[in-house]
């Protein structure tokens, strides 16, 4: 009986100390979480995670299934010490782990984004290099973009027909780069409209976009020596409600019958409603967006569509400024690098399936973006 009791005690003792945990400061965060790792798991049903603050008792903060090994406690305060214990539960038995300690600390640099930093540096270097080349007067070949070649024709058509041009800068905010790209194109379109003395209507959904668009058009008219032709009321704010804005722009298209419609910027569900209404009025339509789901709608309903990056290239393409054209060349080389990386990574991924080349999976991990 005594032997049996001793054996049972020894068994419990060994089980108690077979569950081990480690408490780590979660990397790359603002110091608001700790990671509890089960380094030596046990055959249990589930785990209970307990936390203790200085001067307080242990409290249950979460559970892990028998397969899970990591728990992130994001209810902690930076620079405070916490103790953790994990209890493994199997039927009615409880197995305690060692007590782990941790202090959540904030990091200044997110090391998980090193790959992004490297990418930005390489890409920026390429752009600046080609801008420098363009500054020296070197001629750079830029492929034709039919949608942008058609801008001149579209403005000319409106002039001939004596009808206005409608420019919709999307429904994005001024913080969207696509909206800024659209505003850059607006400047070029406004210059042409001013030269041809054609009415340019710019309805806006965002107040900040409205104020910027207003200044862009006003400045464009001044730049071509036609400040007198600028009409304040033609650049206007409508509403920030998505479909109310769509209805208003549709109304403008139906009533004013613009000869040319530009839909450039960020678009969502309203893209097809706008483009189809414009097509029904018989206007020549040039659209451009970086919103991939909206591109098919523009392609079927518009005469020309700037797909993704073409929207960003438009300003340089239209202005033909060497400095801006240089950046386009940099973009092209950036794509070449991406293509090269894709090919190499695909090859490495295939090879990493073989145990001998499993090291390659570590290299591929570098390209994961967090």
């Amino acid at each position, binding site marked *: 009986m005594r032997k049996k009791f001793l054996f049972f005690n020894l068994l419990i003792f060994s089980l108690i100390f077979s569950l081990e945990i480690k408490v780590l400061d979660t990397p790359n965060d*603002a*110091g608001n979480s700790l990671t509890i790792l089960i380094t030596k798991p046990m055959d249990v049903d589930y785990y209970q995670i307990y936390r203790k603050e200085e001067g307080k008792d242990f409290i249950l903060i979460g559970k892990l299934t028998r397969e899970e090994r990591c728990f992130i406690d994001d209810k902690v305060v*930076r620079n405070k010490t916490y103790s953790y214990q994990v209890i493994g539960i199997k039927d009615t038995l409880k197995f305690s782990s060692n007590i782990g300690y941790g202090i959540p600390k*904030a990091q*200044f*640099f*997110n090391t998980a*984004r090193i790959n992004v930093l490297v990418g*930005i540096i390489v*890409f*920026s270097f390429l*752009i600046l290099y080609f*801008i420098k080349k363009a500054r020296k007067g070197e001629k750079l070949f830029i492929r034709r973009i039919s949608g942008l070649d058609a801008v001149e024709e579209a403005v000319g058509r409106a002039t001939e027909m004596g009808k206005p041009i409608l420019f919709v800068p999307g429904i994005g905010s001024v913080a969207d*780069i696509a909206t*800024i*790209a659209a*505003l*850059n194109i*607006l400047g070029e379109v406004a210059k042409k409209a001013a030269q041809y003395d054609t009415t340019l209507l710019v309805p806006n959904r965002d107040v900040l976009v*409205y*104020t910027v668009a207003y*200044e*862009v058009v006003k*400045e464009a008219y*001044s*730049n071509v020596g036609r400040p007198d032709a600028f009409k304040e*009321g033609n*650049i*206007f*704010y409508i*509403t920030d*409600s*998505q*479909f*109310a804005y*769509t*209805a208003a722009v549709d109304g403008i298209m139906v*009533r004013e019958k613009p000869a040319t419609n530009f839909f450039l910027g960020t678009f969502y569900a*309203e893209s*097809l*409603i706008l483009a*189809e209404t414009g097509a029904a009025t018989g206007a020549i339509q040039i659209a451009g967006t*970086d919103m*991939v789901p909206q*591109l098919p709608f523009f*392609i*079927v*309903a518009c005469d020309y569509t700037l*797909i993704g*990056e073409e*929207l*960003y290239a438009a*300003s340089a393409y239209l*202005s033909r*400024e060497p400095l*801006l054209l240089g950046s386009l060349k940099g*973009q092209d080389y*950036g*794509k070449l690098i*991406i293509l090269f990386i894709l090919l190499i990574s695909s090859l490495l991924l295939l090879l990493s399936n073989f145990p001998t080349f499993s090291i390659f999976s570590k290299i591929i991990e570098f390209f994961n973006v967090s």
Partner: protein
Amino acid sequence: MQRSLPLGLCFIMGILMIIQFFSPHPISQQFFDTIIKWIRIISAFALVLGVRSISLRHIEAVKRRKSGFVYSIFTLLALVITAVLGLVFGIGPKAPIRTIFNNILVPLGATMFSILAFYMASAAYRAFRARTFEATLLLISAFIVMLGMVPIGNWISPHFPAIAEWILSVPNMAAKRGILFGVALGVIATSLKIILGIERGWLGGRR
């Protein structure tokens, strides 16, 4: 000064926002939150300009009896009524402005959204006219994908859902990712040009 001040501000803020992206530290997060607050404050001021713009445009339309000026009267009335109701009764859950929002604006928005279904049909008709080789390819792949997504497709042949899935996840995804790569590079290039003051279109020109 009129040009160099915005350019200088743009450069400083651009660089700070890049640093912020790479730093998870609370100071960095606090800076980001402050910037978001500033944007809200600036938007609130800009809204005054927006209201002025919409009012002037519609008053002008009514004065000149432009085509559809009746809509301008409605717009101006709606602007005044909602503003007065909002200022007098507030924006609480039982405020009249909520009634207007829930019973007028929401159904009108839903109506506009539902029109999309009809426009999709007309756009699909135009896209699927097999006039060229590409349009024929589009027609065939769309036909397979549509069949693969509905129960009848599976009933005709169990291969339809699998082929539809393959079209969506392989050729379609490849094209989509290709576009996204271009977009990402375009965004970086445009941002860089703006931060460095090479692209000044947003300032109204390049003088």
